[in-house]
């Protein structure tokens, strides 16, 4: 039997070993009391039982604001993100699935160079979780969208390498791993993502549409905190000396400016914008039509100041994905 179990007592050694593969980041509790992914100064900062971070790991691939292009003396220069190897430890399955979704968007034909550089520098170590009241999934699950996955058990973790990087880590950690007679059971539940919805549903006569449109304050929290929301705004700023920079910044489809073009707005009312959000999150659009981009992390529900949960507009709320573990 293969040695794949990491006992709890060896976790801090294992974390030290991970530092050999890059700067170690993981879930911590900030001074203000907010869960966030941040550099792990010491293993004791690690919040193994965190529910969800306010800002998802997408910030490692697509920062809130970044310069993507620089213009000087008649020539453009693409920004090259400062790249150092980073190991992100303790990412829950939904967030891993979310990054796999972002990969499909940004690494498809004509890959986004800033994203691609950051992605290549990121090693993902997944960690099993326990859903809470905000999660949209019905039970714990695993995700293969990582380099290494840790399934938590009673007194340790069962490791599964999912990539060559993951195998390199398990090989380097061989001395810390032991065989166990009874392997920690991976959960039977494969995926409990929110299932894709019928695009026509966004035009339903459900009274909640109007109610939500009146309540939404367009604060932006739902998309800022969503691990798969990637819409961005591009703005150009000249400098005093003649050059200019092009900046990319997160955007939200519920902002009035999101669909605004010269002479008009594609989605002038908040109601139209909510319908659009529904379409993108739960139905997907070209070329990802039919693929829901909601991974069920529950952030939008937890962080919306007015408690909007667009799933209430589904015909049948898939509280149970039908694949109960």
């Amino acid at each position, binding site marked *: 039997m293969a040695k794949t179990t990491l006992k709890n007592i060896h976790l801090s050694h294992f974390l030290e070993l991970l530092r050999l593969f890059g700067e170690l980041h993981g879930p911590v509790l900030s001074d203000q009391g907010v869960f966030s992914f941040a550099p792990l100064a010491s293993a004791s900062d690690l919040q193994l039982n965190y529910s969800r971070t306010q800002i998802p790991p997408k910030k490692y691939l697509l920062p809130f604001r970044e310069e993507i292009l620089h213009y000087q003396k008649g020539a453009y220069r693409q920004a090259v993100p400062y790249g150092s190897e980073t190991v992100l430890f303790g990412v829950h399955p939904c967030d891993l699935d979310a990054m796999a979704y972002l990969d499909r968007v940004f690494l498809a034909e004509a890959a986004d160079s800033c994203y691609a550089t950051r992605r290549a520098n990121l090693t993902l170590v997944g960690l099993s979780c326990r859903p809470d009241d905000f999660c949209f999934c019905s039970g714990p699950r695993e995700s293969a969208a990582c380099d290494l996955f840790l399934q938590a058990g009673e007194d340790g973790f069962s490791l599964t390498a999912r990539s060559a990087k993951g195998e390199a880590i398990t090989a380097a950690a061989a001395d810390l791993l032991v065989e166990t007679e009874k392997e920690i059971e991976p959960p039977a539940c494969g995926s409990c993502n929110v299932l894709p919805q019928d695009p026509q549903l966004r035009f339903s006569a459900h009274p909640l549409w109007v109610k939500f449109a009146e309540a939404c304050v367009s604060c932006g929290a739902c998309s800022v905190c969503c691990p798969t929301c990637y819409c961005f705004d591009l703005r150009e*700023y000249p400098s005093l000396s003649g050059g200019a920079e092009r900046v990319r910044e997160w955007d939200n489809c519920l902002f*009035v400016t999101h669909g605004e073009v010269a002479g008009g707005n594609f989605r002038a009312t908040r109601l139209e914008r909510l319908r659009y959000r529904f379409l993108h999150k739960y139905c997907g659009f070209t070329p990802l039509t039919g693929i829901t981009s909601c991974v069920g992390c529950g952030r939008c529900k937890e962080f919306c100041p007015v408690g909007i949960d667009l799933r209430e507009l589904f015909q049948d709320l898939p509280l149970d994905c039908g694949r109960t573990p």
Partner: protein
Amino acid sequence: MNRPRLAIAGLTACSGCQLTLLNCEEELAEVAARFDLVSFPMAESVEGGAPFDAAIVEGAVSTPGDLANLFRLRNSSRLLVALGTCAIFGGVAAMNNGVSTREELVAAVYGDGEKTVESFAPAPLTNFVSVDFSITGCPPEKQEVMALLCALLNGTLPPLATYPVCTECRSRENLCLLLERKELCLGPIIQGGCNARCPATGIVCEGCRGPVREANVAQELELLLERGFGRKEIERRMSRFKPEWDYGQRR
């Protein structure tokens, strides 16, 4: 390259907005080289020099002198830019507009001795003239002022952020004071761009940058009432930087 002719002027205000410009120490020499600073009464006492490519005006309109200055600037400048919350909304000077009469306020400040300067309720520039661009903030952010100057130099106006304070606040991974601490935070309806200065240090947003576009004022009011604040207290806080709100507005 043509050096754009600039006028920078202050009406009734604290001069903090003009100071923001003087505080851009690193860029100041370059600004002076690239622009023809025709009129900047705060930095030197030269007046006149019209016409201007742009007049950047701080402060609310509160005296006949303010009004005359404003008309003079509007008439002699291609672009008129309102700089700061007072110029755009009336600002702190206007906070008691709807609460006390002018006579009461003047008496409270100057007593009933000497004859005082003639004044009226502080009002935003747009009450009297057309304004081509605004930079909000009490005081405005340095980088937005610099973005304006750089854009002017290139014959355009800058694309400034249009989202509310909450967007930057959440992106900075702050604790939400409205949701988690039930405090009177105005972030959802206030124009962002300050990088959520106040919530980042644990203090609620007081709304110094004025309303964001399509501010859902009615919902914010509901949120605050639900958290146990009185209508009077809420209105008092909201009018600190902008005297008049439409409390029924949802978009």
